[in-house]
């Protein structure tokens, strides 16, 4: 039988109960996924609301990416809960003062919005397919049309209005969802590493860059898989978006870190010891150095030199991969790092890695990959591509 818990080794003095980490890898994956949801939605909104036409090739793909990630957002939470069967208590009998209780409402609202917007966006395609196909899939499209087969100009105008309104509403929806995740950590006064008013903003910006980076990677990979030329102009705009938000996100993070050190409140000695030893590699080297500063330098170089074509796409793609890794490391350093600094302010714990088990490395990896497997299936049912005849022409 698996042990009921894994105790963490420690140095210095830690409270006896602290030796079992309350939150593990699933709570690292959870904000990462919500961040991708918010970020991908941002890309879709840049096209739908702010009219960035260059992003047309990825706009609908971004919507599907956001939806597929969102569907899996509750999974890490459910896997973490001691009583997942009671999870809905938080929605049916919410405790209004709890930041966490609001999650169900934020998430529920956003999922419904996302589904409705996706339905409007793909309605013309679904109607065409329902009328053309006679097989099982055709029946599925019939059901998905919900009896709405009108593709007249007036109907489409009506649809466009809805899409625009939903996309606007989705901006506070998606970002509220993720800002709230930052608040969940930032509002706790028990941990100096988390307790910051800037946490929601930092989470929000890292969410946007992770979503944009994800779209870059997924778009380039999808073009390779479908053997279609990559729209370099689209990738360039995504690259610019990533570049801008990244500089801001990095700055915010450094300001927050600087302010924590400068204020030097109780427990700062332990935090300084922590960052100069244990956090040196995961924070300074992996998250900040390789994950954030390197892609900023790469992108700066590319845009300064005016690089075009394959080299530009490759450079942006590399930066996006590094950035995705950086944001994952940020989530890890916040969630796990925060718990490694003991509440006593005089001790450090070491996170006990688990490979198997409900919250182990394998399960966490599976939850992280699952949305993209779903996306693989979804793009076959609802092709978001603009460059193929089968794709949506809207």
């Amino acid at each position: 039988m698996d042990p009921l818990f894994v105790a963490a080794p420690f140095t210095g003095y830690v409270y006896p109960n602290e030796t079992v980490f309350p939150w593990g890898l699933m709570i690292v994956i959870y904000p990462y996924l919500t961040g991708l949801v918010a970020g991908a939605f941002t890309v879709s909104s840049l096209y739908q609301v702010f009219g960035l036409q260059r992003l047309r090739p990825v706009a609908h793909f971004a919507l599907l990416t956001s939806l597929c990630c969102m569907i899996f957002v509750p999974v890490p939470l459910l896997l973490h809960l001691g009583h997942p069967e009671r999870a809905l208590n938080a929605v049916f009998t919410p405790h209004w003062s709890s930041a966490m209780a609001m999650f169900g409402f934020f998430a529920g609202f956003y999922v419904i919005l996302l589904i409705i917007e996706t339905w409007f966006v793909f309605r013309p395609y679904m109607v065409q397919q329902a009328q053309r196909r006679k097989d099982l899939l055709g029946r599925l499209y019939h059901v998905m049309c919900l009896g709405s087969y009108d593709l007249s100009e007036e109907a489409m105008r009506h649809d466009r209005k809805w899409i625009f309104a939903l996309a606007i509403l989705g901006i506070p929806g998606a970002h509220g969802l993720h800002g709230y995740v930052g608040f969940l950590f930032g509002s706790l006064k028990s941990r100096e590493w988390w307790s910051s008013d800037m946490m929601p903003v930092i989470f929000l910006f890292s969410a946007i860059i992770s979503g944009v980076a994800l779209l870059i990677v997924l778009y380039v990979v999808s073009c390779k898989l479908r053997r279609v030329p990559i729209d370099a102009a689209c990738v360039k705009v995504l690259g610019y978006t990533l570049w801008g938000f990244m500089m801001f996100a990095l700055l915010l993070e450094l300001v927050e870190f600087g302010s924590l050190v400068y204020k030097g409140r109780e427990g700062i000695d332990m935090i300084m010891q922590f960052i100069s030893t244990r956090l040196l590699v995961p924070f300074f080297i992996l998250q900040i150095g390789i994950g954030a500063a390197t892609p900023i330098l790469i992108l700066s170089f590319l845009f300064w030199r005016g690089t075009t074509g394959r080299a530009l796409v490759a450079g942006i793609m590399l930066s996006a991969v590094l950035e995705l890794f950086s944001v994952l490391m940020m989530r890890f350093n916040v969630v796990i790092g925060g718990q490694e600094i003991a509440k006593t302010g005089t001790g450090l714990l070491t996170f006990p890695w688990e490979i198997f088990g409900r919250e182990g490395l394998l399960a966490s990896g599976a939850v992280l990959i699952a949305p993209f497997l779903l996306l693989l299936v979804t793009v076959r049912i609802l092709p978001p591509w603009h460059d193929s005849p089968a794709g949506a022409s809207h």
Partner: protein
Amino acid sequence: MDEKKKLEESQAARRSFLGYLGVALAGGAATVAAGVLPKETQAAADAAPAPAIPNYDWSKHQWAFGVDATKCIGCLRCVEACKTENEVAGDAHHFRTWVERYVYLDGERSARVDSQADPVNIEASASEGKYRFANRYKEAKVDKAFFVPKLCNQCTHPPCVQVCPVGATFKTADGVVVIDHTYCIGCQYCVQACPYGARFFNEELSVTDKCTWCYHRITKGLLPACVEVCPVGARIFGDRNDKQSPISEFIRNNRVNVLRPDTGNAPNVFYVGIDKEVR
């Protein structure tokens, strides 16, 4: 005359309307405040209805706890009694109460701190289920040393209650923070929120657990198990509503401290004889 009467009636109607409006606004504001602010008012609202405990009225008591660190000898009988009384897991990672040892060695400016859960102490007792402090400073010159018993502070503004997404943990009218194990979803947000490390996860039941000052005992007129077994009277318990109770006298006769007052949690465990390094 009629006009005067009419005017009075209309003024009365307006007053009553304004009254209703006032009540409605106050009610709305109170609802919002109760939802957001971790105030006593909310605790009282959450606490209703009173539990069906025979011969016990929770509105008549206001329990509080005192720790006289100058008396504690670190015998750890309290820890053992608590584990037995409350069926707490017998390992070194789950405690409703524990004891910390602070030792200032000669020439050192800060204390060396350990608890019974320290690996050296466990090795000395040869079992995680038996508790003792190893005589690890035998060879050193000790400048100053003392023990500090720790337990849940049953805060007046408990951050653990504030963050619980389902309200499974709540503050009773008599001042104790308890958990409904049949309703807790096991998210452990409350474990994170407690700055004192007083909460832990009960893996057997998959819910959070904590000290309740032995609520099942105190509501029957008994003392908490740890207070009952303390051989030196380092743990004091009683009802603050009773001016002659041990805790009322303890607070009256001493200059008492609470842990981490800066958090605004307003703890209800009052300490005497703790040093600046005790958190």
